[in-house]
């Protein structure tokens, strides 16, 4: 049988029909009734299923729960459910002295403890109408910027982890560890330090901690270059973040989103520049912005903000002049300076010697101030600072007593999380994770 004969007969071949072309004989492997069969099982139909993410899920930054209504891979509606980490911090504050309040607020947003303390203390100081010594202000700025870097490093690390860049997680946590070591050298604690107190800071920065900060400022730029080398040119990273979780300026303002997310949408609103506090007006730094308004832009903004924070820390180290770190008023200032002993941080031995064997009045004063605390004139203030996630506000109300009458924390994680439906609806399920990570919520701050 010749080829022409075969074509003429047009034998039906269910598996691989063949025909002759100028290039030679071509077989088309298809056929049968598979097309009809597949068409009957339409993957895109109007059946919707509810997918529950969390509250226990590594990609939800703690105990965030997301209830998604899915149509195939597409998110049709999404509702965040929060409150799983509510610990009643605001209520507890009303039963402690003003100074003890630091110990509570620092535990809200546990990645930004220094910010919580500073925002709260600025409110209390405004109510007290006291001015903090210059050295305490500079120390606060240095500590806040170190804390901003450590918080952004966790944001980069966890975003990396959630999008599959596991090396980034290792690097981010590795470098954050260096900052936690500095915090330990300064305050004795790595997290939740209660280091910033109404009237100043708990104790002066020791010299070896200053050396560690200088070393860190020298070390970090290389680390940032490494991250950029790892991620910025990475095709997978770009695909997962560019054009994902878009939220423009008007969306941000309507939902109240501030911080890196707002600046990544193009509005250079940074309270350190626009409503300065702690002497930020004396520092030379830029507010980076980007027009992308997507997860990619937020990643770039966080990297740039780390560079700017390093500049501020270097300037702060130069500004650091010897002097007191707590207000002069002995009715407010914590009586004991802490010192590092054999068993950790505690009251300095000199102070204990003084109150126990030299001065009865000093003992009474110490006892009264520590157990009773100081009185704060009645009134209410709102103090806001630029946290790593946005505006961190404290509405502090006093009735003239030794305890706060009411403290409300306006935590940026709480407000920003409202943007999840705007970011994620209409997109893919995988982008919910990328978008949520780009908001960098911390549930400790969100639920308080």
């Amino acid at each position, binding site marked *: 049988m010749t080829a022409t004969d075969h074509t003429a007969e047009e034998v039906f071949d269910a598996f691989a029909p063949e025909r002759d072309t100028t290039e030679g004989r071509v077989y088309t492997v298809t056929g049968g009734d598979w097309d009809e069969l597949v068409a009957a099982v339409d993957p895109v139909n109007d059946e919707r299923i509810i997918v529950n993410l969390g509250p226990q899920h590594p990609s939800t930054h703690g105990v965030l729960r997301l209830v998604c209504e899915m149509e195939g891979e597409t998110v049709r509606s999404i509702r965040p459910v929060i409150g799983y980490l509510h610990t009643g911090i605001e209520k*507890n504050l009303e039963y402690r002295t003003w100074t003890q309040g630091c110990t509570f607020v620092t535990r809200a947003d546990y990645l930004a403890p220094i910010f919580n303390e500073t925002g709260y203390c600025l409110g209390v100081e405004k109510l007290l*109408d006291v001015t903090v010594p210059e050295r305490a202000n500079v120390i606060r700025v240095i500590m806040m910027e170190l804390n901003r870097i450590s918080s952004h490093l966790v944001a980069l690390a966890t975003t990396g982890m959630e999008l599959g860049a596991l090396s980034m997680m290792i690097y981010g946590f590795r470098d954050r560890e260096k900052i936690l070591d500095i915090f330990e050298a300064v305050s004795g604690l790595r997290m939740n330090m209660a280091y910033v107190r109404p009237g100043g800071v708990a104790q002066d920065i020791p010299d070896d901690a200053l050396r560690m900060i200088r070393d860190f400022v020298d070390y970090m730029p290389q680390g940032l270059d490494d991250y950029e080398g790892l991620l910025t040119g990475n095709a997978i990273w770009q695909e997962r973040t560019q054009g994902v979780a878009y939220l423009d300026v008007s969306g941000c303002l309507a939902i*109240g*989103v501030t911080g890196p997310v707002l600046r990544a949408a193009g509005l250079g609103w940074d309270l350190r520049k626009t409503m300065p506090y702690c002497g930020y007006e004396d520092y030379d730094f830029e507010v980076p912005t980007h027009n992308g308004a997507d997860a990619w832009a937020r990643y770039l903004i966080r990297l740039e903000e780390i560079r700017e924070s390093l500049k501020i820390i270097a300037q702060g180290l130069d500004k650091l002049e010897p002097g007191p770190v707590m207000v002069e008023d002995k009715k407010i200032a914590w009586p004991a300076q802490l010192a590092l002993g054999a068993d950790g941080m505690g009251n300095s031995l000199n102070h204990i010697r003084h109150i126990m064997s030299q001065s009865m009045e000093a003992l009474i004063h110490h006892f009264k101030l520590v157990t009773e*605390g100081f009185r704060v004139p009645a009134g209410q*203030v*709102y103090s806001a600072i630029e946290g790593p996630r946005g505006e961190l506000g404290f509405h502090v109300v006093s009735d003239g007593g030794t305890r706060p009458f009411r403290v409300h924390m306006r935590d940026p994680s709480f407000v920003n999380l*409202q943007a999840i439906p705007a970011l994620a609806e209409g997109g893919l399920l995988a982008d919910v994770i990328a978008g949520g990570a780009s908001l960098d919520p911390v549930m400790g701050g969100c639920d308080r």
Partner: protein
Amino acid sequence: MSEGEVQPVGMQQKGLFGATDAGDTSGFGGLVRANPTAGEIVSTPEPLGGYFDEILAALRELLGDDVVRVVVVDRGELTIHIAPDRTAEVCQTMRDDESLRFELCSSVSGVDYPEQANRLHVAYHLTSMTYRRRVRLETSVSAEHPVVTSVTKVYPTADWQEREVYDMFGVVFEGHPHLTRILMPDDWEGHPQRRDYPLGGIDVEYKGAHIPPPDERRAYR
């Protein structure tokens, strides 16, 4: 004070320890202090200075003189007390008028002043990014009729924050799209941030001594 009775903070204004038996050894057992949170709120005399007068003038011109109930300037912050049914209207004007332009509703928080007739206060902290100003709008309602008009149509960011105030204080926001509890469980009873709601906690025994929970301890006032 009898044992086990919960002592609300801020209500006890007699003595130093809050003790009614012989426990107050401070010598100040008969001291009675004024309670600054109980009285009427008094307006600061005008002019207030700075941009405060401009904001007030603009508000009065656009919404009428009666929109502002009380104006307080304290520690460099402006507080405008308004009626609970006019919050949305005032916020709309505050946001849209060119001379005001408060684009961002930074924070919504509740405060409970148990000794006032309208004990539940809601404070809106507005921020003007254009003029770099802040202002606090405050409104108050009674616990029996705790209804405030929701501002979610003007400021969508107030959504969760009003839910939090409802959850914690029991203020009902009329016009809110989905007013449910947000931090506490759905079936929770009571509103925990009210001053007469106990903190809770349990007595802890250590080597025979009992340490009462924080809200039942004897403490200075």
